């Protein structure tokens, strides 16, 4: 053995280190989705309890749900996911016009969905205090509506930024995150619509 002094590093500059720890953004999204699933899961648990413990008929007489109008609303919301995806694909290819058009269309369709839902509440003929059925209907659709509102707020800011020249093929993180949230809202609505209105 010989005592000697060595430089701390080998004969090349150190390469940037990537630890195996979970990426903060991925972890944040995972925790967010987990919390949202738990939140909606609690409401769905109440909903299925009411359906299982109640009669075979759904909705409980004398209530009626506007299945067709809600179906059209579903189509609008699902289409808004397509335009959102188009917006992101556009900016990835450097197409700013496509980004702006996609975002505006998504925003308008989301707004239409929300306004239609508010109109549906006004005309549906029952209130949250009209038994467990009314309560769970308003809770589930209202919870989803609140998520749509949050999604629209995010989309509004993303759209404003897009019109002010932000985002590029290399930097479009804001559109990406907003898009993930919007798709999540759509997925939740498909579950809500299928279970409450159709099945």
């Amino acid at each position: 053995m010989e005592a000697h002094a060595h430089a701390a590093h080998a004969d090349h500059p150190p390469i940037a280190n990537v630890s195996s720890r979970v990426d903060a953004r991925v972890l944040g999204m995972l925790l967010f989705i987990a919390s949202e699933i738990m939140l909606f899961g609690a409401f769905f648990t109440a909903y299925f309890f009411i359906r299982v413990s109640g009669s075979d008929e759904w909705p409980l007489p004398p209530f009626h749900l506007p299945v067709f109008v809600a179906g059209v609303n579903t189509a609008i919301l699902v289409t808004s996911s397509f335009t959102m995806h188009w917006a992101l694909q556009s900016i990835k290819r450097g197409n700013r016009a496509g980004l702006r058009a996609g975002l505006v269309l998504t925003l308008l369709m989301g707004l239409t969905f929300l306004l239609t839902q508010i109109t549906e509440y006004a005309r549906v003929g029952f209130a949250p205090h009209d038994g467990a059925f009314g309560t769970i209907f308003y809770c589930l659709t209202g919870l989803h509506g609140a998520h749509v509102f949050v999604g629209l707020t995010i989309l509004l800011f993303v759209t404003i930024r897009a019109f002010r020249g932000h985002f590029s093929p290399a930097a479009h993180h804001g559109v990406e995150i907003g898009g993930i949230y919007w798709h999540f809202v759509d997925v939740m609505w498909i579950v809500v619509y299928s279970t409450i209105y159709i099945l």
Partner: protein
Amino acid sequence: MKNPLRSEAAAYRFLLGTIVYFAAIVLASVVGGRWWGVGVFALLTAAAAVWFFRRDPVAPPPQTAPRRRAVEGEKRILVVANETVGGRTLREMIRERSEGVREEVLVVCPALNSPLKHWVSDEDEARDAAQKRLDASVAQLRAAGINVRGEVGDGDPLQAVEDALRTFGADEIVISTHPEGRSHWLERGVVTNARDRFAVPITHVVVDLEKEREEVQHR
């Protein structure tokens, strides 16, 4: 587990999958009745679960080799050890390897952590414990005249080796574990996986701390 909503494209595909999933259930319920709907639901859920958990595993990264010019008469040894870092067998082995050469030894002690703490990046306690073990071991090796320094590494021993190789061009990697049956690393195939992953000769040292303690007590 891979997060299905980690990118917009993944979320979009997830949405399309959800549409198909619920459309099939609704269609089966409307056409065939309630039990058909339940059947399709069970079938699709099972198929989705099987697909999700049996997807092709992520391809292993290419072999990592340190970039360094070899120098005659000089040897760099990277030692990876956790609880066995203070073991006599390991110290003697490092001393043997250092005979007749200008040695440079880097001891990496992975900060082993619980999965929950790892996921929330709460690793202070694990790093402190690893640092204490490392300090004691490095002090003993220095007292034996070995040119050694120590680092606390990532909780995943393979990642810790890869991190260390980026800045330390090792000629040999020594992985120290408990004996078979008591070693989590051996159970997880750390030594085998390290041989696949790193283009550096790897020596496996088994340190039986219980036996060493008994020997010390009998003296």
